[in-house]
């Protein structure tokens, strides 16, 4: 059975003055309706570039996109710009990190929501405005018939992100991509937005791709996690697989280095040494090897050959891209990582 969204061997590269930059390299993942995939990575890991490709937004730019992006069996990457355009906002839509920048400052919030509804529905302007009010009400904006005529700068940060969600969901899309939707918000507002997304997903059976660097946010919202590093998927599995039994040394590092509300606060955090690589000069072999503490156990393979993304054990859906063998990884996790979690 084919899933609602299937991405196969997606690669995206940009020509720059310093040569071709491979922002995304051979990514494959899939998603069913009503489920959430969290794509996690640091700046420059390729997570945002991937999401733009799913909406076909690299078309018309210098980016070179290869591979398949199948939505309901249709390959977005093979389609003409004008055909993809008709799907944007209707079948798949997107919300962004900075809602203030993502809304046009000169048009009212209602106008912008109605516009999204009007492109894909043959209705009158007043019906579209009614839809905008209905959507604002649905995402929890108080007095929607009044606020519909406000400009984005008259909304608070949390309300703007709600308005973005209202706009993205106005045509009932099957897929919503949320690119760091809560990063710019305060914690108490972040919690509200996460709840809202979860409720709406239940109501409309939307598939959500959540792009974030925050492991707490994915843990609270996602079903599956795809961990990215330097343009490659390095670990892929269910939330429980990746957050409770992580298999990649980068995942270990992330989990043990983030400060938490539990555990001994006096113990120093197990920081990952070094810095994330720039895409212009990605290290040879495994891109993480210069920061990895376990290279010694493998030898030269780490710096000379790129490991494949393979099942943790035969037939498992938990995939990892690491030269360490399963037994060694399990031993390290048991003795060195688990005690720090």
């Amino acid at each position, binding site marked *: 059975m084919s899933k609602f969204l299937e991405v196969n061997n997606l690669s995206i590269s940009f020509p720059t003055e310093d040569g071709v930059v491979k922002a995304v390299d051979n990514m494959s993942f899939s998603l069913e309706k009503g489920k959430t995939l969290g794509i996690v990575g640091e700046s420059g890991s390729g997570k945002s570039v991937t999401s733009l490709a799913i909406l076909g937004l690299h078309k018309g730019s210098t980016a070179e996109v290869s591979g398949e992006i199948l939505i309901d069996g249709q390959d977005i990457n093979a389609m003409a710009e004008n055909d993809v355009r008709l799907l944007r906002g209707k079948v798949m839509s997107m919300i962004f990190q900075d809602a203030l920048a993502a809304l046009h400052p000169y048009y009212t919030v209602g106008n912008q929501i109605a516009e999204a509804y009007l492109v894909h529905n043959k209705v009158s302007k007043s019906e579209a405005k009614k839809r905008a009010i209905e959507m604002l009400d649905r995402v929890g904006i108080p007095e929607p018939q009044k606020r519909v005529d406000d400009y984005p700068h008259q909304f608070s940060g949390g309300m703007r992100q709600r308005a973005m969600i209202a706009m993205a969901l106005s045509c009932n899309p099957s897929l919503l991509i949320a690119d760091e939707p809560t990063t710019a918000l305060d914690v108490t507002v972040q919690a509200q937005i996460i709840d809202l997304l979860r409720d709406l997903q239940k109501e409309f059976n939307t598939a959500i791709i959540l792009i974030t660097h925050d492991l707490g946010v994915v843990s609270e919202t996602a079903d599956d996690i795809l961990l990215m590093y330097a343009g490659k998927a390095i670990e892929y599995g269910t939330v429980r697989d990746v957050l409770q039994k992580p298999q990649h040394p980068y995942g270990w590092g992330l989990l043990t*280095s983030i400060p938490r509300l539990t555990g001994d606060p006096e113990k120093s955090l197990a920081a990952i040494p070094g810095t994330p690589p720039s895409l212009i000069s990605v290290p040879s072999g495994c891109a993480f090897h210069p920061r990895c503490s376990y290279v010694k156990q493998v030898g030269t393979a780490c710096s000379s050959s790129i490991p494949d993304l393979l099942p943790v054990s035969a037939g498992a859906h938990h995939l990892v891209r690491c030269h360490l063998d399963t037994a060694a990884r399990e031993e390290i996790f048991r003795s060195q990582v688990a005690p720090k979690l």
Partner: protein
Amino acid sequence: MNSILKVEGLTKHFPGNKHSLFGKRDVVQAVDGISFEVAKGEAIGLVGESGCGKSTTGRLTTRLLEPTAGTIQFDGNDITHLSNAQMRPIRADLQIIFQDPYASLNPRHTVGTIVASPFRIGGVEPEGGTKKRVQELLEIVGLNPEHYNRYPHEFSGGQRQRIGIARALALRPKLIVADEPVSALDVSIQAQVINLLKDLQKQFDIAFIFIAHDLAVVRHFAQRVAVMYLGNIVEIADRDTLYSNPKHPYTKALLSAVPEVDPDAVGSRERIRLTGDVPNPINPPSGCRFRTRCWKAQDICASSAPALLQIGTSQVACHFPE
């Protein structure tokens, strides 16, 4: 308490917009009458959401801003209204680290010049010469001392933050105000900088005011934590009490809003969801400023502002503490 910093009734009102020709100008009540003390060598955390006044507090205590009212005593001296010239000798003991490691370093100066600037400004000649001392400082913060002649753009974000830390350390200050020192950094880099600051605090016995919006980060750094909301301190307690037994409803809500990394713990915690956003500091709610979002609010909350009172080992400003 043998305090290095004592702040009483500290207030900062910024002028806002004017609405009519002869009307009154709006007043943004960024910080409104807060009091706290920092002991020598102590690390205190200042947490709160945007607009709560935590950064303004940091700038007031380092006298980068002129307070509207209240007093600031640093190391026994009243520095509330000292001029820039009068502050100069005191700055050696009172330093600040900023959030944005890109904007806070002059791009046209070498790292050596940047880190040595406190010596130059203070007119101090360190033992063994400036260069030697700067290289020592670079080594202390984990940078290669040979990179003395490089420019800020040649470093990554985390390394730049280390340069800022080296500069703050140069004159061996007694108090460092760190204003969101890790929030602009990638996740994998944050831990490095938190560990570094923590080591330095212990090694040199420096008092810290650690300002952050991230409760988990503060927990790993501060021994005592003050929670701010709309220009007021609503709760101060030692770390363990505050995180395990929060007494102010806002502190409770803030803690419950932190997303949980462990999927098994996600459902198990008590969830408190505040409604709405933080109100505008131009026109804050009467009485208790938190009452508009508080599930415990009664009539008294609108009529009288609760004072910060001792309850057990915590100080709480609430009519109905937990």
